[in-house]
């Protein structure tokens, strides 16, 4: 089941009233949407509020989502409209780059976000997460590091990675999982992703 089909399944569940399914979509897209909206709304606290509002609007509009576009394209459109309305309500004008296509959000570098949401505290926390992930990556055995880099940075399928690494697909699946687990282990204290917290 492709990534888009996984979204499709989660949307179907959410349309049947399954709020947890929608929260999984929020988990998946919150940072991407925040990054996109930070190009319109500069203040980090405002970005978070507008992003929350956009997700709520998306949830309310779920019955009208017909699946003709990918979920994230639809969500990003709602996000941009929410941000524009927010700025208009405050008598502020959206930046000239307001008409950002969803694919722009994919292309923007992380530096854009760091620059746009540049408060010392926010920057420090973001840097901490990045440093923890980088340190955990450096500590990985070579085959795990290569597998997760080919997947997350190059965007390759398991098939393609198996061909490059000359190993069975099952091994690729296992290596990527082990890499994620090792990095997650280092991240958990920072993120507080414990069982007693809602994720």
């Amino acid at each position, binding site marked *: 089941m492709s990534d888009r089909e996984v979204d499709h399944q989660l949307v179907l569940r959410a349309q049947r009233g399954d709020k947890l399914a929608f929260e999984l979509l929020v*988990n998946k897209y919150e940072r991407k949407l925040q990054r996109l909206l930070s190009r319109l709304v500069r203040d980090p606290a405002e970005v978070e509020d507008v992003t929350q509002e956009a997700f709520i609007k998306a949830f309310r509009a779920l019955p009208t989502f*017909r699946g003709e576009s990918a979920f994230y394209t639809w969500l990003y459109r709602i996000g941009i409209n929410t941000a524009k309305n927010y700025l208009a309500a405050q008598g502020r004008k959206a930046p000239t780059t307001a008409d950002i296509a969803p694919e722009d959000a994919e292309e923007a570098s992380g530096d854009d976000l760091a620059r746009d949401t540049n408060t010392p505290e926010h920057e*420090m926390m973001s840097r901490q997460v990045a440093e923890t992930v980088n340190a955990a990556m450096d500590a990985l055995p070579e085959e795990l590091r290569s597998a997760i880099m080919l997947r997350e940075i190059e965007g390759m399928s398991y098939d393609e990675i198996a061909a490059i690494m000359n190993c069975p697909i099952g091994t690729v699946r296992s290596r990527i999982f082990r890499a994620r687990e090792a990095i997650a282990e280092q991240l958990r204290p920072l993120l507080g992703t414990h069982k007693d917290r809602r994720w």
Partner: protein
Amino acid sequence: MKDVSALMDGELDPKLARSTIARVEDQDELRAAWATFHVIRDTLQGNAIGPSRFIERFHDRLEQEPVPVAPRWRIPRPGAGALALGGAGVVLMSALIVWMSGAHRDTRRPVDAPVPAAVANRLNGAIAVEYAMGHRQLNPAFVVDDFARSSEVRPPASAQEAAK
């Protein structure tokens, strides 16, 4: 958790993917893995954002939201359009072959032969009941059985005479 990892990569077969989604919803541990693995992905792709209470705040807001009504549309599965088009093509070709072979013609009964009364009664009765059920949805006082009985097709009097 290995399945969660493969799920977010779009590398599970549909059946296992569906059951994994259900398990992620049910188990806190898997939900935490889903969230953390996505943080790792976003960070590696240059979108590191410091820890926040975003999802907890959102959860509280979502709790206040009424459940959306049933979808007005049936979402097409990605790629389903092509499948439906292919299916329509097969049906069209089958119909064409049947038509060309003349198999659509009923050779057992002349076209103008009257439909036997008993069959007509049964057919008309079924149609009448369906029609009446539709009306009953609009007007619960409507009596379906009486309507169905009253609309039965009776053989013409001449045919009844002949039968005697």
